[in-house]
């Protein structure tokens, strides 16, 4: 409808709502093919990454497990787990969510959907080649960049095509106001290709000298979480929390402060991974200061989300989207405060080189980012497939397996890691005693991994049923309680899911 025509219409609230609903449906339709492609492929990699995770986890307390297969030796299985999760699952589900959000927030159809499907094909072929390369003996021991070097240009090319489509759609926007989620998405799509290309060139193609490789490595690896996954997770939370509960974000200004503080401080925090290492002291101090300053953006986001949700917390009993995203948002606060503390020299002296750090990484990438993405998928997928989720019971099972699994994971490794660190720093404790001390916790971690795997299988099953339009046709969204009660709670402004 052109503006001239729109001006002649007499807008009642019902007409307005119907008009926007039609507009949204049209925009969603433009994103259907590429976004579902990214989602389907990412769910596939989630299952692959989970399988590798279980193998690596079990090997750590039972080294004879599958020991005769060189391609599954601990170092390779663990790295293939990390890289398939990073590039197959997180990067890709993040791209799908970003593209959908960008089109919706621009109120413009997504540009070049077919080209995007081609880019998704290239991306997945590259991840597959990379994973085979790592397992097959072409691995590079560079954290988060273990893929054989030829993979990097392919991933970079695919990403640039995807980012161009997103940014062109952003340029088409009909809405003058730029919502905070768009700031975050713009940042993520701009930052990732630079980080990725610079890191690959300076470490694998034209290596810089010695420990410079380590600083470039941690500049990249830390920013992968901080400047790529985090902005996407926050963009999604900033969009979906207000959407589901039908209230605007508490404070626009807090969200802007949060964005710039994140952009500036997170950017510089990466070298705290090298505290005590053979690096210039000023560099490490600089990163520690930036890490502590991260309390500012985290605080603003936490306050903003809390104030938006306050009085509506009961909705997590009903809305699957909100339940996962609130879990993710709370984990974001937790992981960031923990990260700031962990960068202090006195804490780091103990926690560095232990399972404590592994637990911390999973709190970020899993409890925050992955859970937020599950919540987003529960909202987005039915709007693309025009089919509701098959079973509220299975959604509940998915939630409790993943939420319970990651809590168990985090608690067992944090505990084990802290005492491991204390003992490592006491030269009177024989090394083998430390190894033995960690064993029960490593076994607990394997149990947690199996719980997560069950959750992922349930989710993959629900996802496939949804794509195939299986199960009872439903008129109402699948939620975790009584639909009528729920509708009364969110009122006419909330978007149920």
């Amino acid at each position, binding site marked *: 409808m052109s503006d001239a025509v729109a001006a002649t219409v007499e807008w009642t609230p019902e007409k307005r709502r119907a008009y926007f609903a039609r507009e949204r449906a049209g925009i969603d339709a433009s994103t259907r093919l590429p976004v579902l492609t990214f989602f389907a492929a990412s769910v596939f990699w989630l299952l692959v990454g989970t399988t590798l995770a279980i193998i690596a986890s079990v090997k*750590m307390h039972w080294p004879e497990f599958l*020991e005769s*297969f*060189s391609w599954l*030796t*601990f*170092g*390779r299985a*663990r*790295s293939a787990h990390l890289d398939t999760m990073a590039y197959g699952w997180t990067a890709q589900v993040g791209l799908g969510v970003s593209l959908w959000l960008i089109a919706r927030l621009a109120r413009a159809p997504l540009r070049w959907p077919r080209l995007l499907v081609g880019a998704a094909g290239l991306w997945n072929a590259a991840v597959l080649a990379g994973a085979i390369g790592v397992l097959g003996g*072409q*691995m590079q*021991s*560079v*954290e988060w960049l273990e893929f054989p070097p030829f993979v990097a240009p392919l991933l970079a090319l695919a990403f640039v095509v995807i980012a161009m489509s997103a940014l062109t759609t952003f340029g088409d926007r009909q809405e003058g*106001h*730029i919502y905070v989620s768009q*700031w975050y998405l*713009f*940042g993520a799509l*701009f*930052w990732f290709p630079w980080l990725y290309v*610079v890191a690959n060139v300076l*470490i694998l193609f034209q*290596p810089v*000298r*010695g420990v*410079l*490789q*380590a*600083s470039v490595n941690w*500049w990249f690896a830390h*920013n992968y979480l901080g*400047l790529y996954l985090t902005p996407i997770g926050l963009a999604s939370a900033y969009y979906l929390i207000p959407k589901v509960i039908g209230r605007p974000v508490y404070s626009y200004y807090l969200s802007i402060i949060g964005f*710039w503080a994140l*952009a500036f401080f997170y*950017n510089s925090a*990466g070298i705290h*991974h*090298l505290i*005590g*290492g*053979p*690096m*210039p002291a000023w*560099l490490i101090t*600089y*990163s520690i200061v930036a890490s502590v300053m991260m309390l500012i953006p985290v605080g603003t986001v936490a306050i903003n989300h809390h104030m938006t949700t306050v009085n509506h917390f009961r909705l997590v009993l009903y809305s699957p989207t909100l339940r996962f995203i609130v879990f993710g948002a709370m984990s974001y606060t937790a992981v960031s405060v923990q990260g700031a503390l962990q960068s202090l*020299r006195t804490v780091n*002296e103990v926690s560095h*080189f*232990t399972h404590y*750090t*592994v637990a911390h990484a999973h709190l970020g990438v899993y409890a925050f980012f992955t859970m937020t993405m599950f919540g987003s998928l529960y909202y987005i997928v039915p709007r693309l497939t025009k089919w509701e989720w098959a079973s509220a019971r299975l959604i509940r099972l998915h939630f409790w397996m993943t939420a319970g699994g990651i809590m168990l994971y985090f608690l067992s490794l944090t505990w084990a890691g802290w005492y491991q660190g204390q003992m490592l*720093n*006491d*030269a009177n404790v024989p090394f*083998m005693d430390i*190894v033995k001390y960690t064993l029960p916790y*490593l076994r607990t971690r394997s149990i947690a991994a199996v719980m997560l795997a069950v959750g992922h299988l349930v989710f993959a099953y629900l996802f496939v049923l949804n794509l195939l339009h299986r199960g009872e046709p439903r008129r109402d969204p699948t939620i975790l309680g009584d639909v009528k009660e729920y509708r009364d709670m969110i009122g006419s402004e909330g978007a149920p899911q």
Partner: protein
Amino acid sequence: MNHGPLIFLGVFFTFASSWLALVFTPYVQLQHLTAAKSGETASSYPRPIAGLALVGQRVYSRDGCMYCHTQQVRPEGFGADFERGWGPRRTVARDYIYDRPVMLGTMRTGPDLANIGVRQPSVEWHHLHLYNPRITSPGSIMPSYAFLYRKQKIVGQPSDDALELPEEYAIEPGYEIVPTEEARALVAYLLRQDRTYPLPEAEQ
């Protein structure tokens, strides 16, 4: 509010600032580090990694030893690296100028290996340990790297480099276990891990 260009500039400059601080400035400071003459000897340290050890570095990287072992000694008084005998001095940037990739590591499931060549100079020990860590270190959770070893029929005399397996790990009579080229390269690389030479910036 429409802040398109502002967002772009901000996103660009925040990124540029971190690149400047974490990538470019250290580059200016460290890219031209060279080996240093040390003490009375005529040689400079560190020495480039070459020959078989270079192949071993590739095996170490490919099989991911770094995900359980660090190669860095923290300063005295910060942790107990020094007291555990992992090195006589902290390691410094100059120690790594020839490493490609640099494998400082972030995890100590196993001990630090920055100076393992000094601490454990025995080739036989390393082969037995890599073949099955439980032989030398009962209760170890380090993986077996038996796939770097070959089982072969003994013809005539046993080979010089055949592993001397203790009884409980013995294989069927008439056969022996010998290291492949890759296993020998890996051990050569481990024996090269010696960062005990004095450097001007790190006194003993």
